[in-house]
């Protein structure tokens, strides 16, 4: 089975709010963000080849300021996502595939307000189970073959780390760790990721352009947080077959410069 891999970079906007960093008031910080997204998809041998695996590795960083432009906040997140989708390919629309499944996601990051005293950082760590759905549509404009994809992911259960309202991290280091890990679901967390891509062949390459909208809202331990990003993405796609281990012995299948 071949693997479809893309690495994309994105530039877009951040909209942040965290009431640990601004107790007593809801202040939005806005600014720019950049992200790097690596994606791998492969059809597995499960369910007669009707299940595919998707891996997403995302790294993002941004710089924001308050409305008065008197204070800055930086944010950075890393997340890893592994999902399995059942593939519906026999559909009445030519070129359309629908995928539905579950994914697991682990993410961690921070929002750092450069001006604050004993509440300068709001640390984030989440592990989630997500509902994940995708539509992939292959079509032509003229003679140009294109592939459009929309993916949506929504977590429905998980655990997350959250400092308590008003609690300095110094107290955590002194052993006051009660209530820092919470179960999360729709009652205290609303997260959604919308991912659009369009694959365009250009010469000997396939360029993937895209748009990634990510919305992260939590209300945990009396702290409200949101991290909203919208980024335009661009990168290169490659479809490859990986030979490893015992498959390497079957040299008839490939021509290696090394083996």
């Amino acid at each position, binding site marked *: 089975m071949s693997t479809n891999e893309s690495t994309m970079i994105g530039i877009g906007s951040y*909209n942040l*709010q965290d009431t640990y*960093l*601004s*107790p*007593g*008031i*809801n*202040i*939005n910080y806005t600014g720019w963000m950049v992200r790097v997204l690596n994606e791998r998809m492969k059809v597995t041998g499960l369910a007669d080849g009707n299940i595919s695996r998707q891996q997403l590795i995302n790294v993002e960083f941004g710089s924001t300021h*308050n*409305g*008065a*432009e*008197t*204070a800055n906040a930086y944010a950075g997140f890393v997340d890893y996502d592994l999902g399995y989708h059942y593939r519906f390919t026999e559909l009445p*629309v*030519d*070129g*359309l595939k629908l995928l539905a499944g579950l994914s697991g996601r682990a993410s961690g990051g921070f929002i750092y*307000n450069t*001006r*604050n*005293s*004993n*509440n*300068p950082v709001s640390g984030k760590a989440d592990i989630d189970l997500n509902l994940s759905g995708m539509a992939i*549509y*292959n*079509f*032509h*404009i*003229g003679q140009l*073959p294109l592939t459009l994809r929309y993916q949506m992911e929504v977590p429905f259960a998980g655990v997350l780390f959250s400092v*308590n*309202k*008003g*609690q*300095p991290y*110094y*107290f955590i*280091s*002194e*052993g*006051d760790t009660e209530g820092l890990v919470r179960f999360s679901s729709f009652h205290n967390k609303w997260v*959604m990721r*919308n991912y*659009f891509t369009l694959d365009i062949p250009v010469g000997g390459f396939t360029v993937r352009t895209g*748009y990634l*909208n990510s*919305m992260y*809202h939590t209300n945990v331990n*009396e702290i*409200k947080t*949101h991290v*909203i990003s*919208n980024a335009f993405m661009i990168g290169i796609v490659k479809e490859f077959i990986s030979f490893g281990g015992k498959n390497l012995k079957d040299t008839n299948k490939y021509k290696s410069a090394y083996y």
Partner: protein
Amino acid sequence: MHTIKPKAMRKHILYGIVLLSILLSGCEKATEFNSSPRENFEALWKIMDENYCFFEYKNVDWDEVHDRYSVQISDTMSQYSLFDKLAAMLAELKDGHTNLISSFDMSRYWAWYEAYPRNFYTELQDNYIGTTYKIAGGMKYTRLANDSVGYVYYGSFNNGVGENNLDYMFTYFKNCKGLIFDVRDNGGGAMSYSDRIASRFLTEKILTGYSQYKNGNGHNDFTDPNPLYLSPSDRIRWLKPVIVLTNRRSYSATNDFVNVMRLLPQVTIMGDRTGGGSGLPFSSEIPIGWSIRFSACPILDVNMQHTEFGIDPDVKVSLTSEDIAKGKDTIIDAAIARIMNPQDTVRIQ
């Protein structure tokens, strides 16, 4: 594969843009930039009402403060007048950790030391440490009284003290009879440095106090006191006599350092009452973009009492005008005498 015409493609893109704009509207309601005096006054009052930690201890009726200052706020006042009014309202709290910070000024309450004797002059200190003292980790240190007394001046707990700095310093003092640890005019900084230094004077793990923070918006919505312990360092420790020198400007993390050091049998606190500042400050902001810092989390002593208004020394010593005129630091002299002649302690007191 399915083929569509460019015209149909444009239609699909239009639908896509409509869908995106729906998704983009996912922001929660937030307080926008706003320079209205009334709204900024109310925002500041509310932030303090929900998060400041010493209303009851200081017997401040914050509702009454609201009503008294509310009538002084007008929609036409300048931002400078607004700043002064808000600063005056915050000064009602008599809190050195409470500041309003704009791009043109920082409000402060410094009466906790301004109304008291200075009790520290670097010009006098220079007469003892000269110009050849050593500097490590932000500490100035040297030997006094014919190398019999170690002297350390630590002027800010923001100065990063490393474990190696402390090892070399204590090694330098190894033949001294005692140590003077001078934290006068030290306005505080990182409590982790306070712990790091204090752990060098311990023989066993001790209870040093309790921490609390506000987990609700009511004035007394505090967590249960959480015990704070400090363990001895596993590196070089100092168990010979120590005299910690204090004045009113020994504040915040320095107050916490004194709060720990006073528990130790070989330690004497000498000088003036510390300035206090036992609430860890948090920060927030108001819609005009001004930052507010305020006491948020009280650190209680081992008897679960606040030390917000300072800690009395074991031995009260003040600089005398006669000594100042002679270029002498009365407090350093008293500390040297106590280390050199511990039997004369009663006379010094």
